[in-house]
């Protein structure tokens, strides 16, 4: 069927994505697993119904999720939200879980740009809080 148009509600130059809601791999894993279970309830063969994109994404996020427990996932987002990070920065840190301040700055150089309130101590505290969640997951 032709004539169907799609418009993004955010502008389409790509920059708006930087302000959009980012999802960490662990959050996406919860969403996709939930959807997969819903499909399982509705039919016998859910694998047939989902697209290859869905399958590959599900496999990917399950493999690369640092946190499996939904409460832990929520805590991670909550902790990272306290540090005035952009959505994008929050998710990269949550996905890659750097262990040192140098690693974190290498992954997300923008946290160290001038004028932002992130000194090394604050970053180190943030990384410590994250690793605590992992220990007690």
């Amino acid at each position: 069927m032709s004539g169907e148009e799609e418009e993004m509600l955010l502008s389409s130059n790509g920059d708006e994505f930087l302000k959009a809601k980012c999802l960490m791999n662990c959050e996406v894993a919860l969403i996709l697993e939930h959807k997969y279970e819903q499909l399982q309830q509705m039919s016998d063969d859910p694998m047939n119904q989902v697209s290859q994109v869905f399958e590959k994404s599900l496999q990917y996020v399950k493999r690369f999720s640092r946190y499996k427990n939904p409460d832990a996932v929520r805590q991670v987002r909550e902790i990272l939200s306290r540090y005035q990070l952009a959505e994008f920065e929050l998710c990269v840190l949550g996905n890659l879980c750097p262990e040192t301040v140098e690693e974190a700055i290498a992954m997300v150089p923008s946290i160290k740009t001038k004028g932002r309130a992130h000194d090394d101590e604050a970053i180190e505290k943030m990384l410590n809080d994250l690793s605590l969640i992992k220990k007690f997951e």
Partner: protein
Amino acid sequence: MFFHIVLERNMQLHPRYFGRNLRENLVSKLMKDVEGTCRGLFVIQVSLCVLWANIEPLLLLENRSTWFVVAITGIENIGKGLIRDGTGFVTFPVKYQCVVFRPFKGEILEAVVTMVNKMGFFAEAGPVQIFVSNHLIPDDMEFQSGDMPSYTTSDGSVKIQKDSEVRLKIIGTRVDATEIVCA
């Protein structure tokens, strides 16, 4: 990186689907049409990062908004239907929330190696295929052919082969005509 965004689409529905199940029919058609699709196509250049030497980022060639729709998570609103002249089909504007995957220049992400050859290696990150050319692989890693081709450091401590997990930095994007491949 995955995002949660709201998109809008005009869905056309044949009158045979009207009736009590109109909304369900609309939603399932939406899912069939949209899930798993990719809007726009792009080629991305990446470099291995973090553990190894700095690699100068290439110029950004183009930055169109392109993404893969992974899954629809909810319907926000279905507007009033408009009957199209001459056909009897009705067009409904549907606003829906979905999870999309869109790689970004400068983003660092993890991927799984799928194939290694002397030109470089292929990796996959979710729905996206990535190619890393051997020019962007650190000089101290050499290609080893054999049953399990790999890139190995001279002391054998680091090996990149099929199913290895690697971290990549995206350094540029380009639009391609046929499929989504990152490099």
